[in-house]
């Protein structure tokens, strides 16, 4: 369940599998206790937010684009 699901079908398919697992865990916890279900939802939301932020932090930065004005300026 990594990557942008709007980019390609394979990633979207992995999101389907991830959604099955996540919702199964939430439903199972809710059947045991309503408050446990809510706790699992909150926990999963925190984990998802943490994962999203860490994946953004670890993403390699693109090289800085050179500005057109510098490129077009003729050498004196």
């Amino acid at each position, binding site marked *: 369940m990594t990557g942008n699901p709007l980019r390609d079908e394979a990633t979207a*398919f992995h999101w389907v599998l991830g959604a099955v697992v996540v919702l199964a865990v939430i439903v199972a916890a809710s059947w045991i206790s309503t408050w446990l279900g809510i706790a699992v939802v909150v926990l999963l939301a925190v984990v998802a937010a943490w994962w999203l932020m860490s994946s953004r932090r670890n993403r390699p930065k693109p090289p800085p684009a050179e500005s057109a004005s510098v490129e077009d300026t003729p050498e004196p």
Partner: protein
Amino acid sequence: MSAHAEALHGHADDHHGPPVANSSSRLAPTILGMYLFIASEAMLFGAFFTAYFFVRVVNPTAPDSWPPEPYEFPKFVAGINTAVLVTSSFTMHWALQSIKRNNRRGLQAGLVLTILMGTAFLLTQMIEYAHVGFNTGDGAFASVFFGLTGLHGAHVFVGLTLLTIAAVRAFRGHYSPEHHHGVEIPGIYWHFVDIMWLVVYAAVYLL
């Protein structure tokens, strides 16, 4: 005619057709369109879920049990329907993997199976509506039930239309390992519809 006017005139003669659309260099127009579409879909489903949670939780006269007595949701039939829809995501994935490996038969079979399972899902939902024992006028819970499941059913219908177009093109010999965008986009949409159903099924039927 001045040099400036000549330059303008000459430039106009070189260009045929409508002017080139201005687009951001940071985001492709197709990706931006998909983002806006998914955002609008999220807001649409979000509005329906808001109504659902209001009726079930926030409403001071919310029923103690869900659905209110003496009604019952057909959890088992809907569970089978869920399994059918999740399986159709597998066949959709198989179809696209097949064309990437230049297996045209696999693409055709995968698309036909996906369409058949999607149709089975819709027909089962129609039968469920006929036998569920309540109608839209039987209370707010019935309205949100038919609203949420019906909204999703409409999305399944749109997905089936897209898949049918892709299947017809596949049988006509379109698509190749390099060019299969016409299958990829309906595939992404189909998986989105599948995920939305999982959320609807868990929220409305199971919780």
